[in-house]
């Protein structure tokens, strides 16, 4: 019957006796005519009755004892000290090591990429040259040209101003070797330079 689908939706309410009176009358009429729906309605009512007869499952006698033990263990686990051995489990140690390697790599990478802000300025080079030229200096005698040469070797990429320094016409050179020096391959002569201060 075409109404069967609609009426089967009402069977639960019918079995629970919660149908509105108009709907109940309508369903009663349908059930008198439709044996299939009547059988389903009887089945649902009987099913509920059988559910109520099911025995109650009882917890085992030691249920509460086991629960108390579990709670005690759980509390102990939660207040475990930081030096608890579980923090030193092999998996955790491997994770700590991996994290340390990553952090160290990042630090090294960014340290290498840093610009030459922290390097000594050109004026400090001048100061060194002046110190070297001061009378009775306790510093070893090193020529400014040698200092400049060393910086050129070590940090040419970190100190871009150094190229300009080398090409400065005001830099004083006492030997012909200084003027003929090209790039980092040719070494300057270790002879002392004049006492004239370098300016930029």
């Amino acid at each position, binding site marked *: 019957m075409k109404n069967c689908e609609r009426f*089967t*939706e009402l*069977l*639960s*309410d019918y*079995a629970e006796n919660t149908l509105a009176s108009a709907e109940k009358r309508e369903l009663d009429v349908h059930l008198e005519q439709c044996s299939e729906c009547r*059988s*389903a309605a*009887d*089945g*649902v009512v*009987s*099913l*509920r009755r*059988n*559910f*109520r*007869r*099911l*025995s*109650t*499952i*009882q*917890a*085992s006698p030691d*249920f*509460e004892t*086991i*629960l108390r033990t*579990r*709670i005690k263990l*759980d509390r102990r686990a939660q207040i475990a000290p930081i030096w608890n051995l579980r923090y030193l489990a092999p998996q955790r140690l491997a994770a700590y090591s991996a994290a340390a390697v990553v952090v160290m790599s990042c630090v090294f990478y960014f340290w290498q990429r840093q610009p030459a802000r922290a390097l000594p300025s050109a004026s400090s080079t001048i100061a060194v040259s002046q110190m070297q030229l001061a009378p009775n200096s306790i510093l070893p005698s090193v020529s400014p040209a040698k200092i400049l040469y060393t910086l050129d070797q070590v940090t040419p990429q970190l100190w871009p101003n150094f190229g300009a320094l080398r090409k400065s016409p005001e830099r004083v050179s006492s030997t012909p070797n200084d003027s003929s020096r090209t790039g980092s391959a040719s070494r300057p002569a270790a002879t002392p330079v004049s006492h004239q201060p370098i300016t930029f």
Partner: protein
Amino acid sequence: MAEPLQTFDNKISDEDLIEKFQRGDLYAYELIVKRYKDQLLNFVYRFLGNHEEAEDVVQETFLRVYRKRHAYQRVAKFSTWIYTIAGNLARTELRRRNRRRIFSLSNLGVEDKEYEISDDILSPERHTNTVLSEEIIQREINKLSPKFREVIILRDIQELSYEEISKIIRVPIGTVKSRVNRARLRLQGRLKHLLDKNK
């Protein structure tokens, strides 16, 4: 002397008990366990169909209540809260069991599979002349999908209201009613021969 204390224990509401427990009263927690252990065990056992697993899930439920006691707020009924915890844990257990079953089936040979899958170990025909067996009902409940199984247990065995079920499983009341109706129709169809005998 014990009787007045028992009367007092029965009168105090679940919500008052959990509040006492939140303030550190462990006796209140014990009363909660006493009140709910069998109810929850019935619900979880009917849902999982295994007593040991059910007891384990109920233990875990009470452990969660102990740990998360401060998460409960009085805006909801305590029973709704504890049934929600138990239901979630039971569903998790069911999923875990299904994964184990799939794994063990995939490890069996073809001949073993034929043995394992045959479903008529407990044939309904063998029971037609006996009273309606609880095992048969339980088996038929277990054949329902979890979403139908859960609502019919909560409604027809635990006898909770549609509103409370709706809050526990977090679906609208209309959906709960529809699921209960469909579950009942399916079960009455499968258990027809037994229900007719037991009228």
